[in-house]
């Protein structure tokens, strides 16, 4: 293999996507989009995991990212259920309107 990509660049890609996800959570008001941003964060983590695996010649990271996917799936199902159950009582997806509980 001539020219290979240094690990750093994978890590940077991962970090960039992670930051994009964080920004999405901080800046968007739509619950669904915020939720998708969190998915971006989890995906970003997977990139790092797999990159590490490749560079360490190890399979643990792949198992880890397998588990991350599994958790993501579980979170999505529960999260969407919460959104639906919430939507029944208060038909909006604007996060800023959910502030009965405060102070």
């Amino acid at each position, binding site marked *: 293999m001539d020219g290979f990509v240094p690990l750093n660049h994978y*890590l940077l890609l991962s970090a960039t996507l*992670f930051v994009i*996800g*964080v920004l999405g*959570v901080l800046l968007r008001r739509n*619950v669904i989009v*915020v*939720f998708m941003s*969190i998915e971006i*964060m*989890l995906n*970003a*983590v997977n990139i*790092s*995991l797999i*990159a*590490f695996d490749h560079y*360490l010649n*190890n399979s*643990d*990271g792949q*198992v*880890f990212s397998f*588990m*991350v996917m599994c*958790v993501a799936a*579980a*979170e999505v199902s*529960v*999260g969407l*259920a*919460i*959104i639906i*159950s*919430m939507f*029944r*009582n*208060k038909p909006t997806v604007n*996060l800023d309107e*959910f*502030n*009965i*509980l*405060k102070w």
Partner: protein
Amino acid sequence: MEHIPAPAIDFISLAPALILSVFGMLVLLMDLFAGKNKNLLVFASLVGLVLAGVSAFAPKALPVVSFGGSYVVDHLSVFFTLIFVFSSALTILLSIEYNPRNGIRAGEYYALILFCTVGMILLASATDLIMIFLGIEVVSICLYVLAGIKRGDVKSNEAALKYFLLGAFATGFLVYGMTLLYGATGTTKLAGIAEVIHSGQTNSDTLLLLGTVLLIIGFGFKVASVPFHMWAPDVYEGAPSPVTAFMAVGPKAAALVAFYRVFATAIPEIGTTWDTLLMVVAVATMVIGNFGAIVQTNIKRLLAYSSISHVGYLLIAIIARNSLGGSAIAYYMMAYAFMIFGTFGIVILLGEKNSENLEIKNYAGLGVKQPAIALCMTVFMLSLGGMPPFAGFIAKFYIFGAAIKEGYVVLVVIAVLNSVVSLYYYLKIVVLMYMKDSERELELSMGPITLAVVAIAVFGTIEMGLFPDPILQLTQ
């Protein structure tokens, strides 16, 4: 086609978790046939919990390390298993009368509590980052649902949503931190990580550092320490009362023990930097928790802030990082379980038919109308404030003792001063009960089972305060 060698599975050390999983599924199945009568489910859940508690003692010689070093049963984990089982059982007992009154009819409720307990037990024994991650997630996912299980209630919905979104957000940080830790050391086993760090063979110290920071954030969120505590008051207020009590004890204890394991086992040697950081966090947590609680008018919110401040005290034990610290955390959580379940038992007892009656001012005059309950509440409040001769005092005493042994005198002084501040709001409730007359008549719902829970809790609080030795022996 090569065969995968069958892995050795140590059923004995897994027994509590296995039993509870089986009973969880059993409860789910029984729910199909039980109809409206949930008593059978309650009974089955309690049996499961008792069996799990008993089976926790099954391993002969502790500690038992199994699954290639990713699962360990030691004194700490056995004791925490007991705390989890105990707190889940009390949660279920508190729910029996609370749920129908507040429109929670789902039989899955009990199954979710059992699954959550499985997660906590696994978490307390996990010595592998992947296991810790999965344990935390099992616990969290059950809690997201439990927080929102009062489906018709906007507050409950909001609590679930907040908990879920922020929890998932924090999970992102947590798992990223674990990834970096893995990348830096090439292994996910805590012992392996420690070994690599010890030998100085890390791939990158920066990754290690960054990973640890992110890990702190993730754990910081799960245990609700400042500045990652902000979900706690809202979620505690919105969730159904038994679930709130559950959250304040079980999952928090589980996250703490995992936190302790990671910091005491995996990365003890890069300690000094973290100590300063954790000290700042601990102090901030105590201060914010206590000062936040002072102006609260809702009892659940007040208890939420107070539980934040208690995390601050517990972090001191993690900073101390000696064996005394571990058993101090265990003792503290057990004492805290008694106090919190007792307090929430009373909160539930005082609930009315149509409202939960959570305003603190409604506690006025309780000393005259319900002297016994007021006295119990006084015991809990004094114990939470760390007054002798109750359990809360001994618990604080051991934590501070562990810290002083390591020379963190200033930290302990700050903590003691904080305890004094906390007395202000605990005693405010006591004063209200004894010194003020009630503004209106309350139609209290005095459920016998809830009363029994309160009685158990009072007994425990006093017993652990007067005779701390037996429990302490268990933790060491």
